[in-house]
């Protein structure tokens, strides 16, 4: 999940630039969630998006194994 979806992308690349973990890439002029496994769920992409196109979810795409849960 991580970044849940991108709806209404205008292709400005703000999210691609703002992602500290290189999760989003451009494909045919639109932002695409390309490497969800590396998402740190920091919401910076969502907050930098000028058209509020990004929807987040708190779950990791790969289940997190913590020492104690």
């Amino acid at each position, binding site marked *: *999940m991580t970044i*849940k979806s991108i709806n209404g992308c205008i292709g400005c690349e703000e999210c691609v*630039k*703002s*992602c*500290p*973990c*290189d999760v989003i*890439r451009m494909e045919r002029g639109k932002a695409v969630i*390309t*490497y*969800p*496994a*590396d*998402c*740190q*769920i*920091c*919401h*910076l992409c969502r*907050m*930098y998006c000028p058209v509020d196109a990004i929807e*987040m979810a*708190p*779950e*990791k*795409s*790969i289940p*997190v*194994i*913590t*020492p*104690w*849960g």
Partner: protein
Amino acid sequence: MTGPIDTNAHEATATTRREFLTLSGATAGMASFGMTAWADNPVEIEVSAITNTDYDTDVLVIGGGMAGLFAAVKAHDAGAATMIVSKGRLGSSGLTPFGKGFFVFDPETETGTIDDFVDTVSRSALGTNNPVYTRQLAEHSLDRARELADWGFFDQTLANRPFMKPIEERDIPLLERVVITHLFKEDGWIAGAAGFRLDAEETVTIRAKSVILCTGAGGFKPNGFPLGDLTHDGTVMAYRIGAKVTGKEWNDGHTTRSDNPAATFDGWGDMFERVPSTNGVEVHHDLGMDINYRAYVTGNPVAGGPGAAQPTDEVAGGPYVPEEFQRDFDAPGSGEGGAPSGPPPGDGKGGAPGGPPPGFAPSANVGGASAGMAIHKSEGLVPYNDRCVSNITGLYAAGDALGSHMAGGIYTQIGSSLAGSAVQGAIAGEAAADYAASVKAPIIADARIAEVVNEILAPLRREAGYGPAWVTQTLQGIMIPNFVLYIKKASMMQAALAYIEELRDHHAPMLRAANMHELRLAHETRNMILSAEMKLRASLMRTESRGSHYRLDYPDVDDVNWRAWINIYQGSDGSMQLEKQPFDTWPT
């Protein structure tokens, strides 16, 4: 046709199906994320067609956080041709987006003097702080805050635009999304850096008279506190060319939520959405091992912070907290929210007032999550003077990349993380510009460049190898569970070290990458492995407990033998060497 209930039912089903498809899509894609262990390398790019772009500058600033911003601005203003390179975006990578509190020592409003402040930090830090850097923080913080205010930093949530203002005004060249992996050293002097672009099939070399590492701190991408881009890159790059590294035994003790522990935003209170603000003197003894000790002894979850149940029982033993800095267990309303041993509102990285303390949402918290994370300003290159220089001529570091021990081996002054990065960045920038003005441009042999480019691209050229994400997961599995770095014991650390050495010798040389994204992961993984080794060796060497370093087998502070920092460097045979440097001295 259908009633509202049916509609909802349909929606619910549709959502579940969509989520399932997303999840299974992610699972199917795991192989391409390098999640598999040993496998063929399905290279997606033409490696032989990768080109190199060569740049040239006086001062190269690596890193685009708070320290990098000031390093670049001040180096430029001191007359040096300056360039910034960042693997992310200016103001939007590393820990800078996490920090919202900025410590300012304003003589107008403070009741105490700077001397009092430095003494208080030293008492909380049990002598582990370097008072020269502690004083420097207080002396320069107000000026840096004023500059940031001019650029609009305190007017909005996100740092990129305010950070871009001085950079654009000065027309300072900025390379973003370029991952630096190597430093050049020629004849003992720094000569530049090399790396690759994430967005193009291109390596990058930058010749520079002076380099300032503003590469932040590190962590092993701790999966319960997922700072996915903090991977010790700067420290390890510098170590590889002979720089000395300090402070590896200190540990950040942040807990994490038990619900969705990897959700950085959700676990960090409202910090990401806060507008930065300043705060005055407020010295604590925070983010150490006491809460992890509680979790170790009584089991998780651990309580802490408003909204969570307050622990009623005292736990015997555990890390020593100076009486002056102990929290009152029976008065939860007192002080800064009364969270026992936990960060008060506006803790650690931030400190902006008003809001729940980050990492302490009213759900259950678990300890043992943030393994590998450093104490701000206490883990990094050994400073050789008060101007952020390392033992490599021309190589400087600032912020969390410099082991300045500004606040000591435990979290002391609230909001000093951002402020310290700004202060040190500015000092390092001016120092590097002064140095660059006195030397000629270095010459790097073509053969050396070819050799480094080869090393950079090696994971792309492997026909098969270990997936970097899998190796990182293995590293997390060694370092994070069982409190290896929190409640330290020689036997556990030796066991972990054996495994880390195996990763270092057998896995790191066989990491594969299918594209530029994975190439970044491969290099980060190598760096994290080396840092894990440093953390274990330093922790084994320090046979006492102090600040955020807690050993179950040596639980007491040992002032006779251990009023000293531990420096790590690469021996002539390539092995890791450790040495003591007494507190209150400079290395020689």
